């Protein structure tokens, strides 16, 4: 049977008019719902307090960066951001460092009490911070860690470590255990294998876990406020001083709020490819 290979004409491509689909409408409405409150905060952050109080406007009449200037030039203001970022990063590193080997153990081995241990870890994710606030205060005071970054970082491991273990375990289960075994057969020791071969394999999982640790540590208020006074005070707690004798300075408050979103937005930007991929692969 001979095949004729004559002219390869330009293929007819399918075309369709862009239809307005329910899906898109839903998405647009939802995203608008997501963004409008943030916009509102942003709008206010560009207004002076007087302008805010003087009347309702949809956008700032005389945009000004004064509110931001107030925050970024006053050490007692911006130190809050530094404090927050310090303990959040400490917490993320700490949580991942201890969660990685543990998640490996849970994903690869059966051992005495493994399931109970896993559940117990998860219950800590579920423990209400309100329950622990006071004992934490006492505990960290007694070991002399009160009002330090490490105290908040340690306290936040309470809910971040279980979460990180859980997420990482899901990712690790997706890696065939034959890779581990091949490495051992090749002569890799466990630590060398873990760092050189295994961690690159679950990089996206580590990214997702780091994202969640960052997120939950960043947004938490109750414990971080209870465990700090002056030196390690997080921004969320400093923000309350906008309530002055003359009422609330809405403009500065809004600017401070917007600035708290920035680190989060940066983190999302860095893991944006992992979020989609990570969510799909992992068990989260």
């Amino acid at each position, binding site marked *: 049977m001979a095949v004729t290979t004559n002219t390869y004409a330009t293929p007819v491509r399918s075309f369709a008019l862009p239809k307005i689909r329910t899906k898109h409408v839903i998405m647009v409405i939802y995203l608008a719902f997501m963004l409008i409150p943030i916009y509102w905060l942003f709008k206010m952050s560009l207004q002076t307090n007087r302008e805010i109080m003087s009347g309702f406007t949809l956008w700032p009449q005389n945009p000004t960066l004064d509110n931001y200037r107030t925050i970024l030039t006053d050490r007692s203001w911006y130190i809050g951001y530094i404090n927050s970022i310090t303990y959040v990063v400490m917490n993320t590193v700490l949580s991942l460092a201890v969660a990685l080997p543990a998640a490996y153990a849970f994903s690869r081995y059966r051992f005495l009490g493994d399931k109970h241990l896993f559940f117990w870890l998860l219950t800590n994710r579920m423990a209400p911070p309100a329950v622990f606030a006071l004992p934490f205060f006492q505990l960290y005071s007694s070991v002399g860690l009160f009002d330090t970054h490490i105290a908040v970082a340690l306290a936040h491991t309470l809910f971040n470590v279980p979460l990180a273990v859980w997420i990482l375990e899901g990712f690790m289960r997706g890696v*065939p255990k*034959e*890779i581990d*075994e*091949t*490495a*051992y*057969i*090749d*002569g*890799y*020791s466990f630590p060398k294998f873990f760092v050189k*071969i295994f961690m*690159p*394999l679950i990089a996206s999982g580590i990214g997702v876990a780091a994202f969640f640790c960052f997120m939950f540590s960043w947004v938490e208020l109750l414990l971080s406020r209870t465990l700090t006074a002056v030196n390690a005070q997080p921004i969320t707690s400093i923000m309350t001083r906008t309530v002055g004798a003359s009422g609330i300075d809405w403009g500065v408050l809004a600017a401070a709020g917007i600035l708290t979103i920035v680190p989060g937005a940066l983190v999302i930007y860095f893991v944006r490819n992992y979020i989609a991929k990570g969510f799909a692969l992992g068990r989260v």
Partner: protein
Amino acid sequence: MSLVLEGVSKVVEGQHHIYPTDLTLERGTMNVLLGPTLSGKTTLMRIMAGLDVPATGRVVWEGRDVTGMRVQDRKVAMVYQQFINYPSMTVYDNIASPLRLMGVSKAEIDRRVQEAAALMQLTPMLKRKPLELSGGQQQRCALARALVKNAGLVLLDEPLANLDYKLREELRAEIPRIFEESGAIFVYATTEPEEALLLGGNVATMWQGEVTQFGPTPSVYRAPKDAITARVFSDPPMNFTRITKAGSKVIFGEGQAAAAKGALANLPDGSYRAGFRPDHLHLHAQGNDGLHFRCTLKVTEITGSETFVHLDHAGDPWVGLMHGVHHLEFGEPIEVWLDAAHVYVFAESGQLVAPASFAQAA
């Protein structure tokens, strides 16, 4: 110089994955573990490799008990059914990794990697990452990594199962060649009898966690010790039927009587199971002393040079593999011939009572 398993067994959650097994594999031999999925091939290999610790028994390597020894300290190599490579490394680094860990000099590593790559036809791909390769190339990379170590024990767990048919054929021809050069003990697990035969060497047939027979491959094929071994080592599966021996007559199944010939002649009276391979069934008489059966034709399958004939013989499903192309009518009665010399007789318990006489002659 050998690998000896002494009463090795594996029990997981109260279930026997491997019943106590003794096996001696000599240096420089190819050993095939043949059995269906979940028959314990992989578990046995893992015990040999040191990835699993046996519940009982010892593993002795070159006269030394290595039962509890870490895998890292053993000189083994293993290739899995899945294409297992380190995805973050290039093919070169993949192949070089065991050597680097052994502390071999850079020049020596390069020489051996190049050599293994050439053998596996991977030289042009050395700079690429494994996931950019085709399945066959990925598996070649895994094989190269296993071979470059010069391990004394090379374990191959269904290495070709996930490859395309033709690719499998090519690699299957390559593996014995590589093996001949290495001088190591090769252990090769497979579900396919044909693959076992092609690889030659010794075969251990496995069924539900037990090694049913171990010996040179052709002799296990021709003289299976029991019905289970015969069934494991036959594709399409061996045909079975119940027979009753009474005097000089043998009654097949539901009453077709035939003169007791060949291996059947010397049996004591009683009830047995007869087994014969599909390729020994013929559509025409082959000489004078053939047994012949009336069957119903269910389906035929033509491969171009051969015809699979699916038959119903008094309730027993049979398969015949006939030379040449035959177009037959479905549902019709059909006559088939069988040389009595090709019939194995098994006791009700499954033990071989009388081997097929052709096999004894061979």
